[in-house]
């Protein structure tokens, strides 16, 4: 402890950062972060641990209540992202900040456009793009439209964009969340190359294997506080996970072999075209039986959302069959679909799953408020509804002040538990769970996964859509892989299936025959 810290070796120091949001949430408390020049520093923690907040403070998107930031030994005040960029600190957000309809070169120079007699000089933009691209050995076509690029390349544009602005410190916020395992490997090669050239990288993640593979040092956050700072090489994955969660994490899930019975859902030749006449869902067919979890793996945006919206009636069916117990459920109202026993966890819990400004109770009753059980003398039966909400809050371990607390005062994990409490207790025969654990803490994720398995054991048919390969492989009994609106692979049994194998199908490196894929269709 008496070792004097030599502050000069750190290019960046954040000291005692405390950030409290307007809803009273303390996202960071006395957080210290020290980053050496030329290292890849991992910032790690569960979702909601305060990683993104800390980086928003560093990038000037949020102002801390307390704390100081030192850059190259001098204290600096970062009031907005332009100041951060001027100092040489740049950030690549998890959700890309690119204009899809513009070309790569146009996106690259957005805000710092080269001009010729007051007009935008496109040729110069292209030249600049080629120059940085060559300098950092990150090849890209400057004239390609961003919307036509694969995800990995979009990310490359983001990285080049901040390099063009002359940054020395790059913040990458969960850059691998949208990538396949193979694309991730490629990104790592690029990042190591940048490190070699003297750049400093702050790498945000919650995936332990990635940290082990890539980073030099790490800082672990939990509940907004630092729980550890160390050399990555000194720690095992178990050590890191203990720092993250505060206990040993179970990555596997206890479940017995599935005992599928009657077919519940039959989907045949489902096709959905968007307004550009592009097939988002392309001739998809599958079946699910009682007591079975069918997973759909795939990078987000490959038609999974449309499939769940089509089955649950949120969007109108264009062509193909959706049958629940041999009964056509296309083009009937959402209420009727729900009354037939379909439950739906939407991937967007703030838009579809909940009302932020309504109470926990009001969110719990939204699918059943109209039923006679909950009405008396023409008014809602307050007592019955209160009983239901208190019971579900307890059973689903929703952490909230009371049933009257507004949803927006809850954490992401607890909001998702409210959604689950509603959807899982409507006596569902078919559950469409779309990204049920995205962006929520490990505890809540574990809880929801276990619930899914126990509902399966009680005889529900479950469609689990997830971009989290570990989740979708461990929880599902059998698995589909989707890419660009099509089913590209079917694995009848998920045992012994690895993420790498799934990744190869996602990228189209390996292919299955139509017959193999057809195995998922049965009467």
């Amino acid at each position: 402890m008496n070792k004097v810290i030599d502050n000069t070796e750190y290019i960046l120091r954040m000291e005692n950062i405390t950030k409290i949001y307007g809803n009273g949430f303390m996202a960071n408390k006395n957080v210290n972060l020290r980053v050496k020049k030329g290292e890849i520093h991992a910032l790690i923690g569960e979702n909601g641990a305060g990683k993104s907040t800390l980086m928003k403070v560093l990038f000037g998107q949020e102002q801390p209540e307390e704390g100081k930031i030192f850059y190259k030994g001098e204290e600096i005040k970062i009031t907005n992202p332009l100041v951060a960029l001027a100092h040489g600190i740049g950030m690549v957000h998890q959700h890309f900040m690119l204009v899809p309809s513009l070309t790569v070169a146009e996106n690259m120079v957005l805000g710092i456009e080269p001009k010729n007699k007051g007009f935008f000089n496109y040729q110069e933009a292209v030249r600049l793009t080629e120059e940085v691209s060559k300098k950092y050995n990150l090849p890209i076509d400057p004239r390609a439209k961003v919307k036509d690029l694969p995800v990995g390349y979009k990310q490359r544009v983001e990285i080049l964009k901040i390099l063009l602005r002359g940054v020395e410190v790059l913040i990458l916020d969960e850059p691998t969340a949208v990538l396949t395992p193979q694309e991730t490997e490629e990104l790592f090669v690029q990042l190591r190359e940048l490190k070699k050239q003297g750049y400093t990288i702050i790498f945000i993640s919650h995936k332990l294997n990635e940290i082990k593979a890539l980073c030099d040092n790490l800082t672990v956050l939990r509940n907004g506080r630092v729980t550890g700072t160390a050399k990555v090489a000194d720690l095992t994955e178990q050590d890191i996970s203990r720092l993250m969660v505060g206990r040993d994490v179970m990555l596997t899930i206890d479940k017995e072999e599935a005992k599928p019975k009657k077919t519940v859902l039959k989907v045949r030749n489902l096709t959905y075209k968007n307004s550009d006449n592009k097939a988002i869902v392309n001739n998809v067919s599958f079946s699910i039986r009682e007591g079975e979890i069918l997973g759909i793996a795939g990078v987000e945006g490959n038609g999974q959302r449309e499939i769940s919206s089509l089955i649950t009636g949120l969007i109108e069916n264009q062509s193909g069959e959706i049958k629940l117990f041999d009964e056509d459920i296309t083009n009937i109202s959402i209420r009727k679909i729900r009354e037939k026993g379909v439950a739906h966890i939407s991937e967007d819990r703030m838009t579809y799953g909940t009302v932020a400004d309504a109470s926990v109770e009001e969110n719990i009753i939204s699918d059943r408020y109209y039923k006679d059980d909950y009405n008396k003398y023409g008014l809602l039966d307050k007592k019955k509804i209160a009983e239901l909400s208190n019971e579900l809050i307890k059973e689903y371990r929703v952490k909230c002040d009371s049933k009257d607390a507004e949803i927006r005062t809850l954490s992401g994990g607890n909001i998702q538990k409210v959604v689950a409490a509603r959807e899982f207790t409507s006596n569902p025969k078919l559950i469409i769970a779309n990204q049920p654990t995205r962006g929520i803490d490990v505890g809540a994720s574990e809880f929801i996964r276990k619930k899914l398995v126990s509902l399966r054991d009680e005889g529900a048919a479950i469609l689990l859509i997830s971009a989290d390969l570990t989740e979708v492989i461990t929880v599902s009994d059998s698995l589909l892989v989707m890419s660009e609106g099509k089913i590209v692979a079917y694995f009848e049994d998920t045992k012994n299936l690895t993420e790498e194998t799934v990744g190869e199908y996602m990228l189209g490196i390996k292919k299955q025959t139509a017959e193999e894929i057809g195995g998922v269709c049965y009467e």
Partner: protein
Amino acid sequence: MNKVMKIENQFKVIRIAFSIAIALAIAFLIISFVSDDPLYTMYNFIIGPFTSINRIGNIIEVMTPLLFTAVGVCIMYSANMINMASEGAFFLGGVATAYVAVTYTMPSGIHPIISILAGGIVGAIVCGIPAIMHIKFNALPVVSSLMINYVCLYLGLFIVNYVIRDPQAGYMASYKFAKTAILPELFSKTNVHLGLIIGLAVVVFGYYFLMRSKWGYSIRMIGKNTSFAKYSGMNVTAILLSCQLIGGFIAGIGGAVEQLGMYNRFQYQKLPGHGFDGVMIAILARYNPKFVPLASFFLAYIRVGADVMARTSDVPVEIVSIIQAVIIIFVASERFLEGWKYRRIVKATKDTHAEAEKQVVGEA
């Protein structure tokens, strides 16, 4: 977190109190510039309305129509549809009532009921039109509903001035309402009429309908998040349309009750503004009918105060418009006092954390 909720609730009240205080301060400032005897003028403005039974009666009279339009607006706006047609519904509802009250002969118990129902139905149609245009053609309700008001005005004037006009009246007005249709007065010496009781009944109905019934629940959920309502299985378009019809119906019977309670012939030649006042009161009441009587009373009070002031001193009645405008601007501005609230929340959060830590240390 409990503390935070408490602070947020406090600030809902603080914001309205501050808005009123600032508005009154500005009013006083202007009065002291304009008036030769500012103290006397202010006395008349603030205390004047309570100095006689007659004036208190005035407050109640002014307040009565506002109860209807405000409850109607609460219901319409809870679905997050900015429908300004309450004004037209109030006006044309009054015309419809006048028509029934002038043209038909009925027994005294039935006549007012039928007349008022006619007003309500016309009001529902008026407020339903912008909603249908929105649902069918995606027309912006703010614009279409404002335009509808002018259609109502000139259609109403046409009926009054050409169909039921009394040439003997000496001014542009309808025939006298049948005696059987008039609503009785409640207290002598004032014009307070049965409409007040009907209005309060509407407030009670509005509260139970909007805040306690399943219909109200679905209206509020649609207003807060339409996607969620749809996902949960609610029939969004049907509910959206029906709550506009109900709101319009209530605004319409407001117009009807006002005619039958306060006048003996229809004599408006322009829009009276009670529908727009209803919007303002609904905002002050945060779309909860429970608070409508208080908010309407306040508005009626400053109106009567300004009136007393204008009659007894040298300051014109228009000062009220300034007060209203200032209150609404501050109440409607979400971020007013936000910095103060934020600092309070930050402090409360820090205290909570510090306490929690002290406890941990104590236990250890």
